[in-house]
């Protein structure tokens, strides 16, 4: 029961940290806004300067919310993939889900000109892009899953994911060759990844998508626990394997797809964050891992975004660069101290 007490304290610390970082994230940027004013404007009162109010409501708050949603969603889909594929190195980026989403988006941005205007107008809207991107990651996930059936070795699955990633980027490259400069620019900006510039409508769509994904994950917690012993044991304990696997796959592709659609492909969060949660809480119990992964996802994405803004400077770094700087060393460290506990 001591472990329970420890976990409760950890959860309280994480929740407080997430709120604090949310406020700090909003206050930092090319113009520093005092925490007091940040707090005022997001709770509904008026900040002491009108420009501050404007910056917060139209730029910083949407970006902070996006960071939280992206962090939560990517980290959770990483956790689901790691348990489903029984592989500590699985994650939406590694398994090629982000590439699949890229392919979906590329098809739309670069290929829309080939379609009638009425169709392309819908496809180029936020809904169209989310749909294409989720579909892209769903198809890649299905393909990886189909191949993984024939492979007993879980490491081979990663290589398969990598290959699908290469395949989809090859198709994307071919598409760029045939597209106009304007389309190309639009796609390039998207593929660099960015948490900013999302309209409130886009954030609402992203919020709904992540909420659906997280809810599906929440009802999969029991199956995920059963899958810790492998497919056959899980079935012997009454798990409807096909149904559970479908739910897990749907949750992952909805989250990874929609996030990639709006924020571009973001590396390493899905892979590294679940490990941080596992390391801190020292458990494989998904009831605890789910919530801790969600919280750590939000926290780490907020930190990465705060670093990316380079406080006090006029320029900002691409978010992908920051998450890679943070995530790549973790992966190397994991491989070096590859022990049985990773899971």
């Amino acid at each position, binding site marked *: 029961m001591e472990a329970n007490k420890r976990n409760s304290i950890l959860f309280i610390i994480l929740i407080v940290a997430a709120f604090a970082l949310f406020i700090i994230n909003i206050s930092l940027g090319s113009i520093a806004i005092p925490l007091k004013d940040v707090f005022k404007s997001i709770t509904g009162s008026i900040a002491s300067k009108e420009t501050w109010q404007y910056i917060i409501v139209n730029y910083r708050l949407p970006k902070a919310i996006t960071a939280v949603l992206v962090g939560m969603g990517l980290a959770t889909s990483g956790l689901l993939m790691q348990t489903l594929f*029984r592989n*500590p190195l699985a994650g939406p980026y590694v398994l090629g889900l982000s590439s699949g989403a890229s392919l979906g988006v590329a098809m739309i941005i670069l290929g829309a000109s080939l379609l009638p205007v009425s169709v392309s107008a819908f496809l180029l809207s936020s809904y169209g892009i989310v749909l294409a991107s989720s579909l892209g990651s769903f198809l890649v996930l299905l393909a990886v899953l189909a191949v993984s059936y024939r492979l007993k070795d*879980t490491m081979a699955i990663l290589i398969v994911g990598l290959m699908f990633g290469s395949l989809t980027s090859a198709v994307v490259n071919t598409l760029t060759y045939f597209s106009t400069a304007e389309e190309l620019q639009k796609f390039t900006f998207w593929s660099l990844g960015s948490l900013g510039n999302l309209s409130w409508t886009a954030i609402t769509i992203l919020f709904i998508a992540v909420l659906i994904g997280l809810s599906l994950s*929440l*009802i999969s*917690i*029991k199956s995920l*626990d*059963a899958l*810790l*012993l*492998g497919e*056959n*044991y899980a*079935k*012997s*304990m*009454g*798990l*409807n*394997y096909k149904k559970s696997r479908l739910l897990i796959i749907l949750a992952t592709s909805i989250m990874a797809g929609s996030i990639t659609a709006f924020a571009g492909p973001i590396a390493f969060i899905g892979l590294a964050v679940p490990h941080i949660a*596992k390391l801190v809480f*020292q*458990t*494989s*119990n998904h*009831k605890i891992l789910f919530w801790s992964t969600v919280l750590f996802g939000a926290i780490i994405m907020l930190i990465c975004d705060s670093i990316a803004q380079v406080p006090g400077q006029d320029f900002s770094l691409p978010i992908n660069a920051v998450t890679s700087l943070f995530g790549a060393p973790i992966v190397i460290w994991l491989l070096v101290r590859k*022990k*049985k*506990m*990773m*899971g």
Partner: protein
Amino acid sequence: MDSTILSSSNLSIGYKSKKDEIVIAKDLNLNLGAGKLTALIGANGIGKSTLLKTLTGIQKPLSGTVLINGEDIHKMNPAALALHLSVVLTERLPPSNLSVFELVALGRQPYTNWIGTLSKIDIAKINEAMERSQITHLAHKKHYEISDGQLQKVLVARALAQDCPIIVLDEPTTHLDLLHKVALFKLLKKLTQETNKCILFSTHDIDMAIQLSDEMILMTPESITQDMPCNFIANGSFNRLFNDENILFDNQKGKFIIS
């Protein structure tokens, strides 16, 4: 045979490929009773695992049925089957941080709510299973920190916690030294006597199986027969097991000797 729980009728086992069927055995009529420890023996590659997989519902039979209390297990849904039958498999566990207690607790999944919360009854059953398997002192260790022999007992405890009348184990004594083999066999024997469970296990430790099990299922290329160990000894069945002139079964000593 009033105590029969698990039985097969005209069962054919094997694999279906695109072109044809590979039949491993056919016309199997086995009867496993409550409170009986049954050992499944046979040479490597004879199809013990296939038989166990078919009897536990993991693999479909080519024809015939497997019945639990008269109900066809291949028509039951996994949730219903999980209340009748629990398993200990040979496959290695995927990497995880599970503690021994958590691993045993997973056996309660058929009874817990949608998110897997353990009730007081569940916790009592888990503790009982751990006590019976003598692993209570390991409860807070991680499952990768304990020895193979201890892990095997933990897996038995998990199957016990599932609280089913039937437990099927696939080669539970492989990789264990003599001491732990004996300990595991005695544990299985004790469980059948104390809890009146029907326990079926496959093994290569034939001498020990002869001494401890109530019944045996003998798999040879020609036939699959079920009988009591003393009858198998009396009719010389063990000599048919390997079909090799270098290995002989000594009826007096009750074990194999190299000639």
